[in-house]
């Protein structure tokens, strides 16, 4: 590698998160936006194009309204495709079309509807109602005498209100006409009344607030708007009203709702009105000649009844990338970043292996590309120019999918079996040949036979399953009627999964830290139930067996109680820390209120807008929550700290993985703080803290530089590598801690730190546009 290339900041062409974000038609995308034109993407784009062209030409095949379903598993690129469709719509319509891209909120349909409303905005909603008014006023004035005013109205150069007032037109009669036209949009009188009130002064706040689901203000109640928009049916109706308002009358309107299936998964549990409401909404969208794109997971289709399915124009299924598409993606991404469409440092074999390991899941594939590209870069820096190998791919997969080492997976299985009160032996030979060695052999006091537990790595090829199949067959030959359980510590390909399902008396689970104890427990219970029971000898021996089992369960229960108590203690520690932090913040605020006349240092980040400040604060907090260094040392150095805590801390700090993870975390913290400080400088030097009229023209390019520098530095400090901390930061006393809290903190950290650059860029751009 040349000195020059060593000096150039490293930029990966592959996103570390590979999570598409909801974007407006006019919003720039962050970073490189690569689209491999798969059949599904081409198909969806063709439908949207056809819909928009139908609006322009009466000769084309009419697709006046469209309901398009985009279905795919998580990470297959639904959001990316949705964003692409919004941009396609904007291009086809030169930006004149209203298109809205929102993400459904699974917890609350109201939030989803509010997003749609906010995305459209009061001004656009009012302007749309005003369009009705303008057309009506223009029609009345169009008697052949007043072309100028009529043209101005039709070109929206003057508002209908100005014309009505300036010409003393019959406002009451004209507004009556508006109401009549709005009744075509919705037969709900309340919506008609509310929308018509937007044309009059003094009602904006009340109407907008009511449309957002608030209780109607008294001035609305007096006009007959007495109910909140609250029920599922109301909300679907309201969404339909907006579609009719913006679509219809030869206008084109595109609404993309991401993760729409979440609405169904929630609403099906709590509200039977969802089907009726959804069906009504589809009818209204068709009537409005609007285009509705709903993204969701494949099972979404099963939830729709036949009546709803009949209204769907097209269903686009997003499947995993093929090997060819994956190669094309890598070439396009490198072309976009480096100006050269190359596959290297990946090899065709490595790409095929990566596709197999990720099942072609776009997000997983891109994340793996990111890891491997970076590893290769490090390797090159160390003087090794070798291309990406299968071993590197396996290593990346292990880290990416949380695959454990052999000792760790054994420990996880032991833990799960202990919690379940099971008898087991590790590495047990069931026959004479070596093939009959099982990783764990479980026995049951009330069963004649036991259960053989096998641990396997990733199963992504025929050879992988064949080897495992041979082991299982050998065991089943040695011990007829034995039950088998396979724990896959890695990836299980769909074909391999089918192949394993065909092996008799065998259950399979893929290790997942969050659910493993439950998953394995359930499979062992199934195996137990399938085994033949022992013959009853006498009552005492049966009772003894039961007592033994109860004792084991009681011991496991005590163990769990101990873990819970530790968890509670730890939570209390964290609460204390947060309280201290709050106290410090309040103290800081007092200083601000007092005009900074005390000695408390003023936080320079205070000049940043709240949204920007929050991004930094949350990222740093998430980092602290994962590292847990401070509480650990506080506990260890406390006067009454038990010796076991000291030895545990010693164990941690002597572990190189732990030390490396802590070093990454510390550096990350410094990088985030420095990034924040640079943003403070950017903000103040561009006068954005002074609410100046126009920031300097190079402010945006400065912003871009700062954000890119952050992204470039963080490339080498991936929070994914902090996984070691997640394993290590268990309570200092014995026993495993529930993984959910740590895992969710880690996930949150990934989201906050890796997306910090794009998020800061977006928030700062907004601040730039709004003058701070």
């Amino acid at each position: 590698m040349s000195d020059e290339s060593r000096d150039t900041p490293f930029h990966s062409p592959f996103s570390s998160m590979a999570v598409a974000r909801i974007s407006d038609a006019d919003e720039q995308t962050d970073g490189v936006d690569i689209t491999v034109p798969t059949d599904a993407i081409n198909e969806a784009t063709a439908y949207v194009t056809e819909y928009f062209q139908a609006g322009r030409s009466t000769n084309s095949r009419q697709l006046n309204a469209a309901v398009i379903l985009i279905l795919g598993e998580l990470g297959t690129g639904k959001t990316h495709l949705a964003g692409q469709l919004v941009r396609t719509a904007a291009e086809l319509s030169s930006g004149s079309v209203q298109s809205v891209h929102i993400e459904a909120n699974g917890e609350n349909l109201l939030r989803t509807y509010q997003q749609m409303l906010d995305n459209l905005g009061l001004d656009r909603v009012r302007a749309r109602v005003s369009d009705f008014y303008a057309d009506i006023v223009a029609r009345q004035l169009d008697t052949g005498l007043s072309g100028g005013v009529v043209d101005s109205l039709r070109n929206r150069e003057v508002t209908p209100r100005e014309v009505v007032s300036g010409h003393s037109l019959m406002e009451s009669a004209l507004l009556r006409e508006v109401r009549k036209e709005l009744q075509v949009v919705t037969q709900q009188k309340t919506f008609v009344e509310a929308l018509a009130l937007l044309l009059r002064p003094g009602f904006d706040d009340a109407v907008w607030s009511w449309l957002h689901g608030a209780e109607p203000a008294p001035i609305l109640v007096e006009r007959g708007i007495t109910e909140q928009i609250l029920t599922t049916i109301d909300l679907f109706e309201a969404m339909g009203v907006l579609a009719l308002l913006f679509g219809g009358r030869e206008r084109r309107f595109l609404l993309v709702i991401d993760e729409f299936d979440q609405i169904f998964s929630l609403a099906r549990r709590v509200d039977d009105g969802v089907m009726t409401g959804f069906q009504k909404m589809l009818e209204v969208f068709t009537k409005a000649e609007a285009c509705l794109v709903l993204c969701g997971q494949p099972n979404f289709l099963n939830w729709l009844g036949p009546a709803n399915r009949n209204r769907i124009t097209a269903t686009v299924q997003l499947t995993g990338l093929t090997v060819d598409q994956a190669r094309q993606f890598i070439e396009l991404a490198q072309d976009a970043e480096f100006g050269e469409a190359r596959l290297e440092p990946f090899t065709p074999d490595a790409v095929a292996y990566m596709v197999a390991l990720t099942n072609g899941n776009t997000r997983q594939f891109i994340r793996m590309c990111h890891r491997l590209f970076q590893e290769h870069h490090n390797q090159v820096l160390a003087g090794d120019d070798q291309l990406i190998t299968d071993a590197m791919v396996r290593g990346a997969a292990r880290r990416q999918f949380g695959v454990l080492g052999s000792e760790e997976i054994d420990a996880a299985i032991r833990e799960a079996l202990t919690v379940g009160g099971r008898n087991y032996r590790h590495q047990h030979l069931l026959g004479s040949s070596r093939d009959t060695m099982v990783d764990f052999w479980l026995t049951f006091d009330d069963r004649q036979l036991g259960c053989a537990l096998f641990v396997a790595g990733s199963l992504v090829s025929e050879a992988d399953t064949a080897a495992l199949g041979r082991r299982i067959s050998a065991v089943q030959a040695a011990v007829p009627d034995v039950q088998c359980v396979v724990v896959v510590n890695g990836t299980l390909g769909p074909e391999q999964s089918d192949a394993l399902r065909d092996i008799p008396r065998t259950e399979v689970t893929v290790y997942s830290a969050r659910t493993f104890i439950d998953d394995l427990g359930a499979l062992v219970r199934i195996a137990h139930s399938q085994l033949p029971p022992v013959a009853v000898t006498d009552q005492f021996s049966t009772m003894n067996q039961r007592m033994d089992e109860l004792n084991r369960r009681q011991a496991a229960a005590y163990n769990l109680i101990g873990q819970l108590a530790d968890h509670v203690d730890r939570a209390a520690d964290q609460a204390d820390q947060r309280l201290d932090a709050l106290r410090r913040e309040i103290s800081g605020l007092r200083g601000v209120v007092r005009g900074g006349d005390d000695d408390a240092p003023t936080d320079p980040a205070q000049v940043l807008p709240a949204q920007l400040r929050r991004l930094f604060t949350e990222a740093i907090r998430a980092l602290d929550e994962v590292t847990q260094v401070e509480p650990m040392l506080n506990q260890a150095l406390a006067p009454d700290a038990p010796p076991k805590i000291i030895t545990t801390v010693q164990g941690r700090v002597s572990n190189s993985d732990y030390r490396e993870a802590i070093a990454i975390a510390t550096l990350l913290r410094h990088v985030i703080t420095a990034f924040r400080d640079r943003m403070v400088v950017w903000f103040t030097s561009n006068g954005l803290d002074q609410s100046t009229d126009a920031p300097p023209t190079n402010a945006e390019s400065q912003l871009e530089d700062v954000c890119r520098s952050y992204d470039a530095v963080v490339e080498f400090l991936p929070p994914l590598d902090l996984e070691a901390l997640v394993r290590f930061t268990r309570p200092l006393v014995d026993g495993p801690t529930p993984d959910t809290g740590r895992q969710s903190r880690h996930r949150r950290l990934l989201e906050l730190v890796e997306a910090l650059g794009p998020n800061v860029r977006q928030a700062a751009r907004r601040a730039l546009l709004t003058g701070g």
Partner: protein
Amino acid sequence: MTSPAKRINPFIVPHFEDGYMRPLRPFEHASHADLYLAVDDSQQQFDRFTQYVRNMRLPPEAGRLIVVTGDTGCGKSALINRCVHHLADRLRTASPAMSCPIIDVTSVLDTEQELTVSDRMDIACDEIVDDLRGRRLIGPDDLTELDMIARSKGHTNRTFKAIGRCMTADQAMIVLLPRSELTAELIGYAKALRPRIFIFAESAFLDDQDIDQVVRDTEMWTTPLHLRVGQLNPGDVRLFVQKRMTDSTQRGQFPRMRDGDIDTIASRYRSIAHLQREIARTFQYRLDSGLSYRDEDWIDLADFRVANRWGATS
């Protein structure tokens, strides 16, 4: 040698030179009484009112609510002012010693801020009390009581009750209310009425069904008189233009309009206000432009087009 006749705009009525869209106010300017025209069915509605007054024992034992409806710009306010003028006249004739203040609170509300019915009524009520205070028609003790009442929200009914208590038998009161669009407001006033109080209300948004509801809900108190002004009838435009020009002949010189041109522009207008605005603006434009403005000159469509920025015909 006689000086040349003054050049006038025949569509700006005397006393309203500063605002030609103001409705006629004969109770302030007696000459306005002769300027009313039988357009928009307003004459029939006025006749109904005079009949109503004729059938009334003056002064009445109960208060009265008169509601005038019709679309924006049809002449509701002008009709109300004419009715008020007639009523005040009849009251004075019936009881020469009677004092009858005309309290106009039509413009008291901020048009840019929408208020609840209760708040609107309170503001109008406070304005009425202030007006009475200014005219010294209420004694200091009564004013103190009214001021105390005004401190609480929703005090319209109690304020009218107090005003009614302090009005003597030779006192009446005519109130012109702000425009209303809600039946609840009219019902509220109807219920607040006291003897010898006449309330005039107007609305461009209430229809016959709404007024029927007001009547139903107030039949225990008083039955409002509903006057409904219609839209321009065929011939109304020509009647209006010609009458204004004829009535102005003695006031000064001005160009005329040909019948053909009047009929051409007539199709454009649905309300008397729209006609008044554009025709007054057209004559004013011609008057201010320095172009010939004599009795023998003509105002034609070109003047209308320029004055009202109609632009090119489509």
